[in-house]
């Protein structure tokens, strides 16, 4: 990406960079982690973070001091992801929510309770299988689950980053967890961690 700030003087640019280093650079780990979970690929995550930071510097004079810089960077990254990255990448097989809905409702509750959930069932899954299940979520759902359950952001923060109402954050999280549960349940069953006799009604 080419930087163009020809109108700014070099001393202004240096001041701007100092400010940028203080405000934006400290959020790079969070953005990289999000990019990695969104793309599922280290090189793509590198490109996405680099693109985001170069764009952010280009428009840093437009950033309002005192507002949430992390949220601003997330919005730039999301736009970069949608406009540049997603166009080039063939989407992997996505989970169909309607299929999940039926499956989820039909898993017997008593059988899962007796297994103490993740300790006995999901804990045997490999990290790769968990990552794959996340990657296969539709993008809107993947975004909120990463920001909430991995990054630990509040609903208000996520709403600010993604630019959606808090109610939509909650609803997407609810559905995302349902989809993940079904996906991981399938993996656990395939691996024999769940008895096939008591999986569905």
């Amino acid at each position, binding site marked *: 990406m080419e*930087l163009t*700030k*020809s109108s*700014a*003087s*070099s001393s202004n*640019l*240096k001041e701007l*960079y100092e400010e*940028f280093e203080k405000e934006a*650079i400290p959020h*790079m*780990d969070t*953005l*990289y*982690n999000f990019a*990695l*979970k969104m793309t599922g690929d*280290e090189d793509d995550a*590198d490109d996405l*973070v*680099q693109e985001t*930071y*170069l764009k952010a*510097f280009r428009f840093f004079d437009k950033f309002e001091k005192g507002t949430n810089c992390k949220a601003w960077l997330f919005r730039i990254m999301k736009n970069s992801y949608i406009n540049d990255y997603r166009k080039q990448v063939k989407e992997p097989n996505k989970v169909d929510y309607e299929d999940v809905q039926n499956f989820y409702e039909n898993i017997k*509750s008593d059988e*899962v*309770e007796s297994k103490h*959930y*993740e300790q006995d069932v*999901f*804990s045997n899954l490999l*990290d790769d299988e*968990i*990552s794959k299940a*996340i990657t296969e979520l539709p993008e809107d759902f993947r975004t909120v*689950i990463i920001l*909430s*359950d*991995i*990054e*630990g952001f*509040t*609903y208000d923060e996520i709403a600010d980053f993604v630019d959606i109402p808090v*109610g939509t954050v*909650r*609803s997407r*999280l*609810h559905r995302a*967890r*349902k989809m*993940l*549960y079904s996906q*991981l349940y399938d993996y656990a069953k395939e691996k024999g961690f769940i008895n096939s006799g008591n999986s569905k009604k």
Partner: protein
Amino acid sequence: METFEEITSFVDNELKDHSIICRIKSLIEENSAIKTEYMRQTSIKELLKKRCCRANAPDHLVTNIKQQLYCFIDASSKNKISSRNRN
């Protein structure tokens, strides 16, 4: 708000109203479907928290981004000097 979505807020500690929190707690104790929903959501949240490690930006990426920004600032300074000399 639908009850199952209230469970989501409860799991995430996002409910502020004490009366709603009490209602959800007693629903979890008394209603098996609600309890199952609560346990499923909690299990997923806990699993992701424990198993999805956060990755830090690799050093080469941080260096690369900073270098590109330095180069740009440096190039801008040189351009300015050479345009002054021309004038």
